[in-house]
């Protein structure tokens, strides 16, 4: 369960998020769509306090945080509830695929090494990379790195996983292997928030779609309501442009 109330964020004078309210049920898959610069990444990054929100409250599972006054320990506890998959994977460059997956189990959960390795190997198998366990990120393709980063996110058994455009840095032929892994996850009971430009994919995996523009939630609902039959002119315009781009790329 994720509950956000009156979240705002500005960078200096620039207002980037305005009065965001958000309710995500446990196990729900939410897709966030919207034009570039609309604040999608900032919203996700406020949820795990990689950006310090300017105002509002954030509640994830049983940790509630007032963004006006919180201590390092509160931030740490809130972060424990989520994991994040970044656009540029951000794998630890000095660690093998397996070590990337189990790093936080070893240092945060203080798990025994053998146990962590067991978990790590199972997760790598789940994303189809058991053979690459001992390779360093530099030797993996973008798609493989992103799958490792998904395994790393799963390792901490987070209440929710935040995906920030997980496929937009990938070469087109590598997009599918990553989407396939996320698709698989969406059938399980992990809560997921996915910022994506892949409309077809959003329609397919999401229970709920949010359209953002200019730092605000403009419209939300089921994929049918928002992506198929939106009545909102801004959503329509965005979807038309996104469609043109996809057609352009296909040509």
């Amino acid at each position, binding site marked *: 369960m994720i509950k956000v109330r009156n979240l705002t964020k500005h960078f200096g004078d620039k207002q980037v998020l305005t009065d965001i309210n958000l309710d995500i049920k446990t196990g729900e898959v939410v897709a966030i769509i919207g034009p570039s610069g609309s604040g999608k990444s900032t919203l996700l990054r406020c949820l*795990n306090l990689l950006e310090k929100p300017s105002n509002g409250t954030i509640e994830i599972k049983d940790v509630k945080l007032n963004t006006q006054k919180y201590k390092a320990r509160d931030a*740490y506890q809130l*972060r424990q509830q989520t994991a994040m998959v970044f656009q540029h994977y951000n794998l630890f460059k000095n660690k093998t695929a397996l070590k990337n997956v189990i790093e936080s189990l070893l240092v945060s959960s203080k798990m025994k090494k053998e146990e962590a390795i067991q978990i790590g190997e199972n997760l790598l198998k789940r994303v189809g990379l058991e053979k690459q366990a001992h390779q360093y990120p530099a030797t993996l393709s973008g798609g493989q790195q992103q799958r490792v980063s998904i395994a790393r996110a799963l390792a901490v058994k987070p209440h929710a996983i935040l995906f920030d455009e997980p496929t937009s840095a990938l070469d087109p032929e590598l997009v599918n292997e990553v989407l396939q892994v996320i698709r698989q996850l969406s059938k399980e009971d992990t809560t997921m928030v996915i910022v994506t430009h892949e409309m077809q994919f959003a329609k397919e995996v999401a229970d709920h779609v949010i359209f953002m523009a200019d730092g605000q939630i403009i419209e939300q609902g089921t994929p049918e309501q928002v992506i198929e039959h939106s009545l909102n002119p801004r959503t329509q315009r965005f979807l038309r442009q996104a469609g043109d781009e996809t057609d352009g790329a296909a040509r």
Partner: protein
Amino acid sequence: MNFDLQYMLEISLQIAKYIPITLLLAIVSMVFAIIIGLVVALIRNSKIFGITHLAGLYISLFRGMPTLVQLFIIYYGLPQLFPSLSTMDAIMAAIIGFSLKESSYLAEIFRAGLNSVDKGQMEAGLATGMKRVQIYSRIILPQAALNALPATGNTFISLIKETSLAFTLGITELFAEGKILASASMRFFETYLVVGLIYWLLVILYSWIQKYLEIWLSKPLRR
């Protein structure tokens, strides 16, 4: 030509006996310099108002003064203010002087090394629930070390050579021993050439170690 190869060979062993003291000065000073330099770099990088400026002042001060002057201030000057320091031996004074000096160079090198590590590494660590200290020690420092290694190595090479200044505090190390032998034999050229060549050998030896260190550290980053 007035050149005595036989003499050179004879004194080589004699001078080489002082390699350990030169290495002691260089290595111990380097270890302290690395520790101090890292702390100063982290402070300089922190955005805590005031102490980051203090770190900046430290760097500027110790970089801006000649090493020789620093050594004299510490060894001859400080005991005047604090009489209890007059028992400080010359080797300790030299190590303190070299450590402070080199740490000011290393602090800047380490800061650049730390800043060259992708910001995403810290974010990924935080997002998986790690603490900042853990992320620094396990993820960022190892990557920064590789970036900082060449410049750190150059600093160490300079330090090996600069330890020759320790003779001014009355420490008998490579250079001082050369000086003693040269004035006894009046064979200045041969003696100082031997001293110079020994420094050169030490530097070559170290460069060789550094090469392997670099290969080892960069193993994860090679395709």
